[in-house]
């Protein structure tokens, strides 16, 4: 674990990989250092943000160094079932890349347990990782200028659901009618770090 400077805005904690990042995030859920306003997990790091002038990032760094994250622990934020129409424009390409039939891709995607590791890209966009190591895909060589809201997509080891229509380079697997982001809802994001997700084929 390496604690890096972000001036007086907070500290960036670098860890060995996603599992360590999720374990650290779980430890921070239990014991958040004083004055930390936001915890932003990512693939290999966790950012702790503070209110400049109110908290000394050095004290936050010291508190992080005292944490003992337990390996394998993940923050648990409950479960979510996501119904999906598996008719994405890239389904055939995904199947070819994974060396499966299209039906096998659907079976594997619905059988796996996915966990939201972190959010980014857009409000409510969750990067979900699975317990199935076969899901590893490159991004499309050219990004689409418009991916519709509700698109279920794959890239790298991640699955995501586009919260709103936006440009995007991920491989489109299907679509869901579930509204994953709604500012009139509390919390607005269904896909929050630590949420466990099961995809189900929609009738």
């Amino acid at each position, binding site marked *: 674990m390496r604690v*890096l*400077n*972000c*001036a*007086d*805005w*907070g500290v*960036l904690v*670098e860890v060995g990989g996603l599992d360590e990042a999720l374990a650290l995030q779980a430890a921070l859920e239990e014991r958040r250092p004083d004055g930390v*306003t*936001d*915890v*932003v*997990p*990512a*693939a*290999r*790091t*966790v*950012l702790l*943000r503070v*209110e*400049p*002038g109110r908290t000394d990032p050095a004290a936050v760094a010291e508190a992080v160094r005292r944490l003992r994250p337990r390996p394998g622990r993940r923050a648990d934020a409950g479960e979510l079932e996501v119904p999906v129409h598996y008719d994405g424009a890239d389904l055939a390409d995904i199947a070819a890349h994974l060396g499966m039939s299209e039906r096998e891709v659907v079976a594997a995607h619905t059988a796996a347990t996915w966990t939201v590791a*972190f*959010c*980014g*890209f*857009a*409000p*409510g*966009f969750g990067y979900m990782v699975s317990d199935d190591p076969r899901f590893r895909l490159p991004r499309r060589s050219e990004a689409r200028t418009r991916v519709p809201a509700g698109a279920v997509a794959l890239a790298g080891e991640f699955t995501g659901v586009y919260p*709103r229509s936006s440009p995007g380079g991920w491989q489109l697997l299907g679509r869901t009618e579930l509204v994953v982001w709604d*500012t009139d809802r509390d*919390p*607005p*994001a269904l896909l*929050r*770090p630590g949420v466990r997700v099961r995809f189900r084929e929609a009738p």
Partner: protein
Amino acid sequence: MAAVEVLRTGMGTTVQDAGRHGHAHLGIGRSGAADAASYALANRLVANPDGAAALEVVLGGLRLRARGAVTVAVTGAPCPVTVDGRGAAVDTVLHLPDGAELELGIPATGLRSYVAVRGGIDVAPVLGSRSTDTLAGLGPPVPRPGAVLPVGPPPRALPAADWVAHPPVGAARMDLRVVLGPRADWFTDAAVEVLLHAEYEVTARSDRVGARLAGPALERREHGELPSEGMVPGSLQIPPDGDPVLFLTDHPVTGGYPVIAVVVAADVARAAQARPGTRLRFHL
């Protein structure tokens, strides 16, 4: 209830407050007034509580009409101000009778002016904030000509000062303090020296997300791809083309290019006043 009617918005006017805290883990940035110091001063002049929503105006051009009597203060980039065509001053308390028109001309220095209205702009908050996040497309709608913005009830406190002294806003050259890291080790020692000794010019491709800078390229030592990681305002992110981006208030929550250094908070507010052409120097 009092309100202000927007007659003209200039290049860009948004409603901003102190920002949206505690949602970064959902991919939602802080947003809020880009020059937090000038914004806070505007609220202080009209005795608003901290965090009351005000208008952020880019390079002047705003025209408002008071609906009911309102008290306002204009701070930040010092622009010529008129009330019903008569000259008025920035950084002072201005009383607008019902129907009076406030107009902001183009500031001689700086980029963003703030118009605080006593009682605050009372549009509906989104996730606890009345700031428009231009990157995320979140927050109250951007005011258009014809928009009527409600003004909240006046606070109990009365304006205590008619005028407040503060450092000048905007300059042709700015010195900004930085702390190296978090990814300074992704760059050569020579690149770090260049960053700390060269001048970088703010380009026209700058907005609330970031000030895009032009200047000598910064050579990388590490050529791998950085997995996306959390970002803070003030980050000097170096994309592959080598031209730094100085992240401002609507910056993305995570980013995938290495950050060589971070501008300290107090200086990010000043940097938000750097108009295109401004020359920046970074110091430890």
